[in-house]
């Protein structure tokens, strides 16, 4: 019995008792205003998403059903600071299989967006975003690669309009977020 409790605690990665001060009762409304996350309140915890999730099969902590429950309960700080929200591989099986059409992967995306806004982002994403801002491509394609294309008879790569990209990074607020984490 105690072993079971221990496993549960280990799996959840947090203590079983919650304080009222941990809860933000308005969080579910905040989430449900984000496009793609409107149906967060419709989840009735059937667990189909988790049973069919390839990541949940290999990871002891990633449980999409639990993420949605935590969002409904208003455990905002816990959710936004938990690294597991970065484990969804966007295979979209949960989106197709959910009987309530909750759009779980979209809600996980919304949680990631909020976490970046209020906290930080994983280094890998910072790199991808900064590469796109600098070159238009998510990876830096070296001069050697470009020369190799020529020797292989491939046409030149399309060029991004970097001025336009910089403007879009500015208006969507992404530039500010990058600066925040770069400093």
């Amino acid at each position, binding site marked *: 019995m105690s072993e079971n409790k221990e496993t549960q605690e280990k799996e959840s990665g947090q203590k079983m008792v919650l304080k009222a001060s941990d809860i933000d009762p308005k969080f579910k409304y905040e989430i449900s205003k*984000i*496009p*793609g996350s409107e149906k967060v309140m419709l989840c009735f915890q059937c667990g189909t998403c988790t049973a069919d999730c*390839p*990541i949940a099969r*290999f*990871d002891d902590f990633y449980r999409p059903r639990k993420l949605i429950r935590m969002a409904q309960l208003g455990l905002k700080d816990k959710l936004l600071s938990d*690294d597991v929200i*970065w*484990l*969804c*591989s*966007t*295979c*979209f*099986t949960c*989106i*197709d299989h959910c009987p309530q059409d909750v759009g779980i992967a979209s809600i996980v*995306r*919304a949680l*990631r*967006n909020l976490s*970046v806004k209020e906290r930080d*982002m*994983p280094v*890998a*994403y910072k*790199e*991808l*975003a900064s590469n*796109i801002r600098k070159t*238009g*491509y*998510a*990876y830096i*394609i070296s001069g050697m*690669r470009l020369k*190799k*294309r020529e020797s*292989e008879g*491939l*046409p*030149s*790569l*399309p*060029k*991004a*309009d970097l001025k*336009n*990209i910089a*403007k*879009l*990074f500015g*208006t*969507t*607020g*992404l530039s500010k*977020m990058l600066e925040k984490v770069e400093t």
Partner: protein
Amino acid sequence: MPELNYLIFLGCVIPYRISSYEISTRKVLDKLGVELVEMPEFNCCGFPLDPINHDMMLTLAAQNLCLAEQQNLNIMTLCNGCFGTLNHVNKELKEDKKLREKVNVYLKEIGMEFEGTTKVKHLIHVLAENIGVERIKDAVQNPLNPLRVAQHSGCHIIRPAKYVGSDDPENPTVLKKLINVTGAECLNYLDEMECCGAPIIGVNEKLPLQLAREKLDHIRAVGAQALITVCPFCHMMYDLNQPRIEKTFNEKFGIPVLHYTQLLGLAMGFSPEELAFKQLRVNASEIVTK
């Protein structure tokens, strides 16, 4: 035949490290009578930015779509990620007026407006729907039997079904049919729909390698001589990362991973050199010299 003109959208991964996919695709499509139009300007589809800023993903995807609209042509992608993103955003912006208006406010900043006049297709849609299996069959000069392979369609050309909707999401058959046309036999195996895990490799290496290891294990169990992919991300997980998987789990697989266009190219009579077989990490010479 004007419907066989497409703007080719390469995305980032292919020019970065998977040019064998591009080389073999260009050879095969040229012989099948498809004209690929080169774009002077395109950029990342937006997919890597979705986890950090959904608005920026929408806007970057829409900006690519606007560039295609200006050319009055449809887009063909080779990458599942690019297809999933561009197709989803294209459909969502066409259907959702409020969202379209929001994205157009961002686009106005760079003098663009999304109108919704272009379509997005993945290579396998062009092959199966626009060229058609019959025409491909006519182009096969060197049937590949008795070669036995397995397919991995990947996620974003299948799901979410609401936005993709061109194949059965529980039992996709498009790639299987395309493989069977080459004369190779496409085998069924356990958990065919399983994700390759590539999108999270930047934040967690272990999980994608575990997923990929399991897939290679299931493929080996049915005796497939090669795995066939249609996405540079999936290809990277199974081909480039195969030695790493073997080292991590202390297991030997040695399963060649071909782009579908390499398989089709062989059947159409191209040589392995012309199809850039040399660039594959896992040696595929056993299949070629069958």
